C-alpha cells in the first residue's frame, strides 16, 4: 500500500516536472493532488473495500437461513470457524448458478465469506466444508485484507490513468516537442528520468495487476493447505475443485477486479489451465490440475498412513 502511494507520488511529481520544464507551473499541484488522491483511495478502499466487492457481485447476506441448503452453509461455516480458531465470518449468497466462492474483509474479526448458489447445488457436505475451509484459510492468513485492497486499487489505477491519459492527449503534440527540447538542455539524467516517468505511466495498470496476480497465486496454494489442515480431508477439496472446474462457465456476476479473491478463476480463462512462464505471470490462480494433484497426493499419503481405511464421519 505504501508502494502504491509512492508510485502515485512519482507519477504526479514527475508530471509537475514535465510542466515545470515548459515553464508553466512553478507550483507542483499535480503531484500534490495525485498523492492526496492516492492516500485517500488507499484509506477509502481499506475502509469500504469489502462492502464494495460484495455489492459488485450482488451478494445478499444470509442472516436468517430458511432452506436446508442455507442452514447447512451456516453450520459448515461455523464448524470451519471453530477448526480455524477464528470468529464466525458473515455469510453471503451470490445469486449465480456458476459454482464459486470468495472471502473478503479486513481481519479475522471482520470477515465475509460469499458462496454462489451454484456451489451449494453441486457440492456435498464434505466438499462444501473443504471450500469453506479454503476461504477461511485466506481469512486466517490475513490474505483478505491484502487481496481486497489490491482488488480496489487495480480499479483506482485504471480510473486515474484513463483520466490523465485523456488530458495528455489533449495537449499531446506541443508537450512532446517542448519537453523534449528542454530535457535535452537539462542533461541526460533528466532525459532518462523523463523516459522512466512516461514508461511508468504506460505500465501503471499492468504493474498493479501483475502484483495482484503474483500475490494471489502464492496464496491459493497456502489456502489449499490450510483447508486440508482444517478438514483433514484433502480429497474433498480435490473433488470440489474438479466439480468447479468441469462447470467452468464464466461466473457472470463476479467482475474482473475481484477475480483473484475467488476459489477458482471466475472468468474461465484458458490461461489457468496452462503451465509455464506466461501463465505464471498473468494468471490469478495456479493451474487447476496442479492444485488437484497436490491435494490428491496429500490425501493418498494420509490414507496410506491410516492403513487404507477412511473413517470420515459425515453423511452427506
Amino acid at each position: 500500500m505504501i508502494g502504491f502511494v509512492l508510485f502515485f507520488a512519482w507519477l504526479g511529481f514527475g508530471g509537475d516536472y514535465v510542466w515545470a520544464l515548459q515553464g508553466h507551473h512553478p507550483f507542483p499541484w499535480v503531484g500534490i493532488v495525485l498523492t492526496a488522491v492516492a492516500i485517500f483511495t488507499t484509506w477509502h478502499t481499506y475502509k469500504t473495500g469489502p462492502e464494495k466487492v460484495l455489492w459488485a457481485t450482488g451478494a445478499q447476506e444470509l442472516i436468517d437461513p430458511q432452506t436446508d441448503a442455507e442452514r447447512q452453509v451456516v453450520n459448515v461455516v461455523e464448524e470451519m470457524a471453530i477448526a480455524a480458531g477464528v470468529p464466525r465470518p458473515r455469510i453471503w449468497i451470490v445469486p449465480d448458478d456458476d459454482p464459486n466462492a470468495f472471502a473478503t474483509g479486513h481481519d479475522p474479526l471482520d470477515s465475509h465469506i460469499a458462496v454462489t448458489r451454484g456451489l451449494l447445488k453441486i457440492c456435498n457436505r464434505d466438499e462444501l466444508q473443504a471450500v469453506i475451509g479454503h476461504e477461511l484459510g485466506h481469512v486466517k492468513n490475513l490474505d483478505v485484507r491484502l487481496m481486497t485492497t489490491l482488488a480496489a486499487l487495480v480499479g483506482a489505477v485504471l480510473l486515474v490513468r484513463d483520466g490523465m491519459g485523456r488530458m495528455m492527449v489533449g495537449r499531446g503534440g506541443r508537450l512532446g516537442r517542448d519537453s523534449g527540447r528542454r530535457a535535452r538542455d537539462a542533461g541526460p539524467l533528466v532525459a532518462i528520468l523523463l523516459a522512466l516517468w512516461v514508461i511508468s505511466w504506460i505500465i501503471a495498470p499492468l504493474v498493479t495487476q501483475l502484483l495482484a496476480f503474483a500475490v494471489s497465486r502464492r496464496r491459493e496454494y497456502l489456502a489449499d493447505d490450510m483447508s486440508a489442515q482444517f478438514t483433514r480431508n484433502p480429497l474433498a477439496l480435490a473433488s470440489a475443485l474438479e466439480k468447479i472446474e468441469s462447470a467452468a462457465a464464466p461466473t457472470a456476476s463476479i467482475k474482473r477486479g475481484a477475480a483473484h479473491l475467488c476459489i477458482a478463476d471466475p472468468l474461465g480463462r484458458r490461461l489457468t489451465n496452462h503451465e509455464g512462464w506466461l501463465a505464471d505471470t498473468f494468471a490469478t490462480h495456479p493451474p487447476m490440475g496442479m492444485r488437484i494433484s497436490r491435494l490428491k497426493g496429500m490425501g493418498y499419503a494420509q490414507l496410506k498412513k491410516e492403513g487404507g481405511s477412511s473413517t470420515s464421519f459425515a453423511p452427506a
Partner: protein
Amino acid sequence: MWVLLILIVVVGLWVVSAYNGLISLKNQTVNAFKQIDVQLKRRHDLIPNLVNAVKGAMDFERSTLEAVIQARNQAVKVNASGPEGIKQISQAENTLSGALSRLLVTVERYPDLKATGNIGQLQEELTSTENRIAFARQLYNDTATQYNTKQQQFPTTLVAGLAHAERTDLWEIEDQTERAVPQVDLSRR
C-alpha cells in the same frame, strides 16, 4: 568487551522472545480447551430439543433415545462437578458421542422417516454438532501439540521453567467401542 556486551544483549532479547512465545502458546492452548467446553455446552443444550422433536416419530426406537438422554445427563453432571480433569469429562462425552452416532445410524435405517423434513433437519444439526466438537478438539490438540513441542525443543526448553510451561494432555478417545468403526447393517429392512 564490546563483543561480550553484544552477546548479552542478543541472549537477553532471545530469552524475552522465547518466553513470550511460550506464554502466548500457553494461553492459546487454554483458550482452545475452553472452546471445546463451549461446544460441549451447546450440545448439552441442544439434545433435549432434538429428542423432543423426534420423540413422536421414533416411538419404536425408545431405547436409542433413552440412551442418548442418559448419556447427556451423565455428561452434564461430570461437567458440572468441576474440572476434575480432562480424562473424566472426555470419557462421559465420548459415551454421549457414541449414543448420538447410534441415533444417526438408526435414523439412516428408516428411509421414510428421513423423508419428513424434521428428521433431515435433525440429521443436519446432529452432524454439525458432532463436527463442531470434533473440530474444537482438533484445534485444541493441534495447539497443545505445538505448545508441547515448543517447550521440549532445544533451546526453548531452557526458558520453559521460567514460563512455568508444563506438558498438557491431548484429548484422546478412551472408549474402545468408539475407536472401532461403527458397523452399519444395510441388509435389514
